[in-house]
């Protein structure tokens, strides 16, 4: 009798456990991405724009710390601050006065440096239309299961971002680039962060699905810099990225912090400007999107001793000998890179 009860309890527990596993399996693949990429761009040069390079390097640092490897990060810095003749602490880029945090570190890998950071190169990286000789480190080799983080910083205005004092990228160009990426299935979900003056104007024109955008200030407002450092002689960071870095320092690969917390970074009392965000093009609810979905490269691993039934997708065909006695091989062909016919008939 007791043995039967025990067996019954055991089986019911196992059943419940199995159901949980099945649920977890369901959750396993809810975010839909399998790899992470980051494109981090600093668009301004000259010594007094030290803070833009520090901004980009601090996001680079967080993204690397949370797991995205250098091979999946495209880092574009328009000028070299660490080795600038005016830097009193050569080979360092500090993000905080009193020189607490050196974001340059030992293993920075800059992919586009100096005058290579141009609007054309940036758009080519995004759309993948690079000459065949471009090395892998300079390419964004994302696919339709990639979550991409794009971070831009520099000097901007209403509807444009200035690259290197000589050219600009407009919000329309950026929106069209993202649409090209969507049509070529180059991303699963994309998070766009911009820290410039009037940054919100840059995401106004987006129209592709699965885009989430964050900006440090609204149209008509300036993004301000954080404290200057007396020893180095320039402002070290912009306010928005400073508080973003502070927020990200608390995130570790297993954090369950979601995007709604990221939207609250740097309120008007700290930032003086009003940060903005845009989520209407995003299909999932931002409350269920983890920060590590974009900032980290989290491999979802859960250890279980139970077996899980996956619906088999591979159909086994019995090999039948052909009429002439030889094994007939099926002829394979490549699928279309760009399924034009499907797009046209949409």
């Amino acid at each position, binding site marked *: 009798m007791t043995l039967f009860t025990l067996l019954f309890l055991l089986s019911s527990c196992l059943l419940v456990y199995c159901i949980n596993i099945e649920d977890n399996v369901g959750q396993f693949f809810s975010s839909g991405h399998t790899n992470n990429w980051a494109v981090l761009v600093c668009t301004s040069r000259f010594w007094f724009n030290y803070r833009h390079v520090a901004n980009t390097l601090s996001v680079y640092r967080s993204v690397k710390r949370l797991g995205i490897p250098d091979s999946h990060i495209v880092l574009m810095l328009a000028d070299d601050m660490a080795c600038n*003749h*005016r830097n009193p602490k050569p080979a360092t880029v500090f993000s905080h006065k009193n020189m607490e945090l050196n974001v340059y570190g030992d293993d920075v890998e800059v992919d586009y440096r100096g005058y290579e950071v141009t609007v054309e190169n940036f758009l080519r990286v995004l759309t993948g239309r690079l000459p065949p000789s471009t090395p892998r480190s300079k390419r964004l080799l994302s696919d339709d299961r990639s979550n991409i983080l794009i971070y831009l910083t520099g000097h901007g205005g209403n509807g444009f971002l200035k690259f290197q004092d000589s050219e600009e990228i407009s919000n329309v160009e950026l929106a069209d680039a993202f649409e090209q990426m969507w049509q070529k299935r180059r991303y699963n979900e994309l998070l766009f962060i911009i820290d410039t003056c009037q940054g919100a104007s840059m995401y106004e024109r987006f129209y592709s699905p699965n885009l989430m955008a964050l900006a440090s200030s609204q149209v008509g407002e300036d993004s301000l810099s954080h404290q200057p450092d007396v020893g180095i002689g320039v402002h070290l960071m912009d306010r928005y990225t400073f508080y973003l870095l502070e927020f990200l320092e608390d995130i570790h690969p297993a954090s369950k912090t979601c995007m709604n917390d990221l939207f609250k970074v740097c309120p008007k009392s700290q930032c003086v400007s009003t940060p903005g965000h845009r989520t209407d093009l995003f299909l999932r609810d931002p409350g269920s999107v983890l920060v590590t979905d974009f900032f980290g490269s989290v491999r979802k691993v859960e250890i279980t001793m139970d077996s899980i039934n996956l619906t088999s997708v591979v159909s086994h065909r019995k090999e039948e000998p052909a009429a002439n006695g030889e094994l007939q091989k099926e002829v394979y062909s490549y699928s279309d890179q760009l399924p034009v016919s499907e797009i046209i008939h949409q």
Partner: protein
Amino acid sequence: MGLLSDPNRRRALINLLTRLNAPICGMPVDWLVKTMQARGLEVFTQSFSRTLPFPDENKERYMVKGTNVYGILRAPRAPRTEALVLSASCSPGDENNQAVGLLLGLAQYFRNQIYFAKDLIFLVNEHDLIGMQAWLEGYHHTNTTGMDWTPLHGRGGSIQAALSLELNSHVVTSLDLVLEGLNGQLPNLDLANLFYAFCQKLSVLCTIEGKLQRNDWDSVSGYSQAVQTMMLMVMKQASGRPWGDHGLFLRYHIEAATIKGINSFRQDKTDATTIGRLLEGMYRKLNNLLERLHQSYFFYLMPSLSNFVSIGYYMPAFGLLAVILLLRALDLWVQLVTPPPRNEERVNDIAQSCPGVLSILIPLVISHLTGVALYMLPVRFQEMAVEHFPVSETEAVVLTAIAVYTAGLALPHNTHRYSSEGTEQGWRVLKLVAVLYLAVLLGCTALINFSLGFILALTLVPVAAFVTPHVPKVLSAFALVFLSPACTLLFSVFFYQELQEMPVSFQDGWILYLSVISQGILDHYLYGSLVYPLIALLVYPCWLLFWNILFWK
């Protein structure tokens, strides 16, 4: 962080300053070379010599020979494309020793810093402006004033900015900023703002034209002080002489200013460390520059260190004065073109309606010849004057100039002997030409040196507009002489002394006036100042034309 926070360096600077306070004969070239080399600079010297056209009685020199010593601190990591200059002039006696000591102390401090992206040139020049002119000419490979100098062996790239130090006493209570340079040129306003910002940051008393800042600019006394300061700046700019060693840099598009230490016997004294920190801050800011200073105004007047009047505000005032001349010219043209009223004397009028070209040309030529005489005679015939009169060379030059000037007043009586009978139309045509000539002349002068153009316009335009042969002769002759350039200069000398709150008696004022004339002539020959040739060759002949018109027969 910052200069002399290290007690060792503070002690080293104090040692240097006390050693320099001992009187030194001439320029200690060898000691300077050795000291600069000990501080790790690349040291070079340049010798120069110049014989002045006549002895300079203010500075008591005639045949000048000297050596400039300069040390270059190379930027540790940057290419040698740009440079900054810090200069202090070293004269016989212990006049500027504090500045030289501070310069050497700063050189030692800057040697240990790695953040300099431009070369720093520490220049100790002898015979202040003459040595500076020799150095600048050697640096830029030009020779505009006929000085003899040895070529420079060491160079540092194109100079972006320069500061000159004058610390004349051992005790400094406030720092004065001097901006006016050769021919009234001014450095970019950003340099003045930089100095003021650091003065405020380090709580150093700073002045401009010797006047302190105050916090009640809206009150009557505040406003009058602002007007006084601005008038002083106008006077200084109009003289066209460089009021500090920095004045010669401006010609080469190098922003430069002079910082003078003043002892006004206050309680709070500024020590060398604070002045050093101020200079260190200014040089770090100039080091961070990526382009030459060009964002702020080049043409301005400063009623105080925290206010300025830009060219957009003061040019319309001059424009209105110039318009008077143009309206008068228009009036004359209309008078000339309208036919005379029909009456019995029509025949005579027609006969006299075309004035001879000669009657216009002769006054013009003679006035300009007088101008040329005023320009050339004083210096050329000083030996002859010294032989015949018991005066020194300088006095000879100045008195010859005044004599030629006064002789010009007698001209109209002589001119008319050679020309045909003057006509009603004749003086009108001459006046038209003279008025237009004056308008163009004043316009060009105001563009280059606004203060000079404005003062000349203020005095010459009224008489130029009203003078005709028909106004009461004695009164207008008196007015014309009263407002001629020479008398304007005389009154300016007295006015300047009043503004400086050091009024002079008539005798002292007259002697000052003579020395001002001699300095003006010397400035022209030594540094290329344009005030003397402008007045002698262009303004004085123009004024003579009006004098001619007044006495037209």
